[in-house]
């Protein structure tokens, strides 16, 4: 048991340290949502009127609406990026060091996920801090409530990335997958516009967006930030996490999964 705990501690510390020592990656992770917040949202606010919808109980500026979506975006990118690093690690070998560890493989993969989620939560809080000074402020207890939500959504998006990484054998392919996964997931979600707005223009897009796990993660975060629980989103995100995680663990299983096909 102690062995499990020590390994978890080791894997998480390594990931955090690696993230903090790569300043470029830290900056990029922050600049992306900030560009959306400062430029896109500022330009877009006049084009879109937001009605009063839960969890908000008043009219809100567009920047406030989009912030939970951008938090989701941070976690989405982080999840994909850390699985990208798993593909890289596998090619370069440090993933192999991890996999010869005398512990069950599912546990090692869960540790990896927890580590990358910890990194994403750090990014999110730096983003929230900057947003605070930009007058996007949630009730104080919201900053506490958001933690479990971020843990769940981060794990779910990370598990999705891990699942993809178990299918893809080369870095180049993975870049393509990222474009085909990140963009549709982000734009077909409630991150940038409320779902009812989308329903006005297309019922099909609305349905797709509604069953997009990313939408559910964003809604979970949005409600949590205002101290509320969105039951549907919670359930949907949790179920997605379980499904993605099981598939990813299967994908990394040395005898049944997809690993053996990797070698050319």
């Amino acid at each position, binding site marked *: 048991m*102690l*062995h*499990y705990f*020590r*390994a978890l*501690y*080791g*894997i998480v*510390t*390594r990931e955090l*340290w*690696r993230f903090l*020592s*790569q300043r470029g990656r830290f900056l990029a992770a922050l600049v992306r949502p900030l560009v959306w917040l400062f430029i896109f949202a500022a330009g877009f606010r006049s084009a879109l009127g937001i009605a009063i919808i839960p969890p908000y109980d008043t009219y809100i500026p567009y920047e406030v609406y989009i912030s939970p979506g951008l938090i989701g975006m941070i976690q989405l990118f982080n999840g994909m990026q850390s699985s990208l690093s798993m593909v890289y690690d596998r090619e*370069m*070998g*440090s993933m*192999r*060091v*991890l*996999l*010869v*560890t*005398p*512990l*069950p493989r599912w546990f090692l993969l869960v540790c990896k996920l927890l580590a990358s989620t910890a990194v994403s939560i750090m990014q999110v809080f730096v983003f929230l801090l900057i947003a605070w000074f930009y007058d996007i402020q949630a009730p104080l207890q919201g900053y506490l409530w958001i933690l479990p939500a971020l843990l769940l959504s981060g794990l779910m998006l990370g598990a999705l990335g891990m699942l993809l990484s178990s299918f893809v054998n080369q870095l180049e392919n993975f870049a393509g997958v990222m474009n085909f996964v990140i963009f549709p997931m982000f734009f077909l979600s409630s991150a940038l516009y409320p779902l009812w707005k989308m329903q006005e223009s297309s019922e099909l897009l609305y349905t797709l967006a509604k069953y997009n796990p990313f939408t559910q993660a964003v809604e979970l975060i949005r409600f949590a930030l205002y101290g509320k629980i969105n039951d549907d989103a919670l359930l949907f995100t949790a179920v997605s996490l379980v499904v993605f995680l099981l598939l990813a663990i299967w994908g990394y299983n*040395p*005898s049944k999964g997809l*690993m*053996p*096909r990797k*070698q*050319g």
Partner: protein
Amino acid sequence: MRSNVSAVDKHPGLRVTHLSYAYAKKTALDNVSFQVDRGSCSILLGPNGAGKSTLFSLVTRLYVASEGTIEVNGKNLRRSTYKALAKLGVVFQQTTLDMDMTVIQNLRYHSALHGLSRKQARIRIEQELLRQRMFDRRHEKIRQLNGGHRRRVEIARALLHQPSVLLLDEPTVGLDIASRQSMVEHIHQLATQDNLAVLWATHLIDEVDDSDQLIVLHQGRVLADGWVTELLHDYNADNVSELFQQLTMLEQAA
């Protein structure tokens, strides 16, 4: 196959029996059997594509073999997976250290993976780094070290959890001649000092020492397995290079 396994060595360090593995279409390993005893160094010699990497992937459990068994220190890799892996130290072909972390951070990570306590880790890291003559450089980042020094850190890492089997996958790739020679000597010393079963994969014939055991792998099959001196005598060859040529020619003729 080999006659001089002494009766005392009831637990060979590494034993591979009837191991076969195929990728989608190509057979990579075909009924491979051999054993490496503790305290000795076995060279797994074969050209690129002979199946060395596949063999290493199976022993390190990146994949699981469809047929055959692998035992590490008497523990079956399939049935007692974690007990077997706990006794295995590996130096992979490519550098697998974190470049932007220091020597000691890399080793601490590895100690954590193997469940060493903080105190145990500190003691073991110090011991191994002193042995590899890298203790003074423990706070340097891996990126600042040259290839030979990185390899030494990797050997220290592979030995941290006190394994009984040490696997080295072409460990001298990218090293200059002097570092290569010192590494060959050093690993031989380790095998005796620590009573390690060393399996050293290479395609470089000059890394074979006369005192070694030699396993020749070619197109997924073991062509020869025995002490170097015996094999040279049996095949009436002057040196390993000639022996290797003879074996592969015989194989092609067959």
